[in-house]
């Protein structure tokens, strides 16, 4: 790690490249917007009770059997 720091300018260039790649990866997903399933999910939930019931239902569905 120390060797990289010594390279100074190169390190700054590498850091900028890493930042760019990280944001490119992330923003590609952000640009996909809101998938319909989530818009519908939030629209149809009346409130906390309905959501809590859905959480409980989901837990039952993917019952892991305890590990």
């Amino acid at each position, binding site marked *: 790690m120390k060797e990289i720091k010594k390279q100074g300018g*190169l390190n700054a260039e590498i850091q900028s490249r890493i930042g760019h790649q990280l944001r490119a990866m992330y923003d590609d997903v952000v640009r996909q917007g809101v998938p319909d399933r989530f*818009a519908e999910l939030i629209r149809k939930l009346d409130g906390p009770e309905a959501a809590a019931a859905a959480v409980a239902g989901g837990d039952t569905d993917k019952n892991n059997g305890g590990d």
Partner: protein
Amino acid sequence: MPLTNELRDDILASVPSLRAFAISLSGNGDRADDLVQETLLRAIANIDSFQPGSNLPAWLFTILRNLFRSDYRKRRREVEDAEGNYAKTLKSQPSQAAHLEFEEFRAALDKLPQDQREALILVGASGFSYEDAAAICGCAVGTIKSRVNRARSKLSALLYVDSAEDFGPDNTVRAVIGGNGG
């Protein structure tokens, strides 16, 4: 706080970045969307505990991050299988060269310890302040700063350490990954 229509809209507006965070953490689009769904359900189930005027995205990210971490222990095997799946979640396929570079970046990111990876993503991609990232991860601001710095150093080492010499970054990454099996 009650679930007003305004709050619903605000939650929905956070979905794109929640998905990006989930995919960055898990490397797997399907699992990421399951995580987002679970996050939304739990957020709405516990909406009474959300403080009006506080940072809604940070609150949602905290829920997702905690779900991921508890889920991660159960599914470690699937996470190891995730490499390469990320590209399938992209709408527009990048060019061959860009794709290769992207896969290498993704592979290097997956090599980071989880603490460092999430800190780097929150600060470097989601755009949270160090303070918000610390709140999301439940640790001190200084800890987040040091995790981000270590993550950047490690990514540099994985991706570019020999780039000034004879090896291109491609060879470097393969050598690092290949030599890491034991």
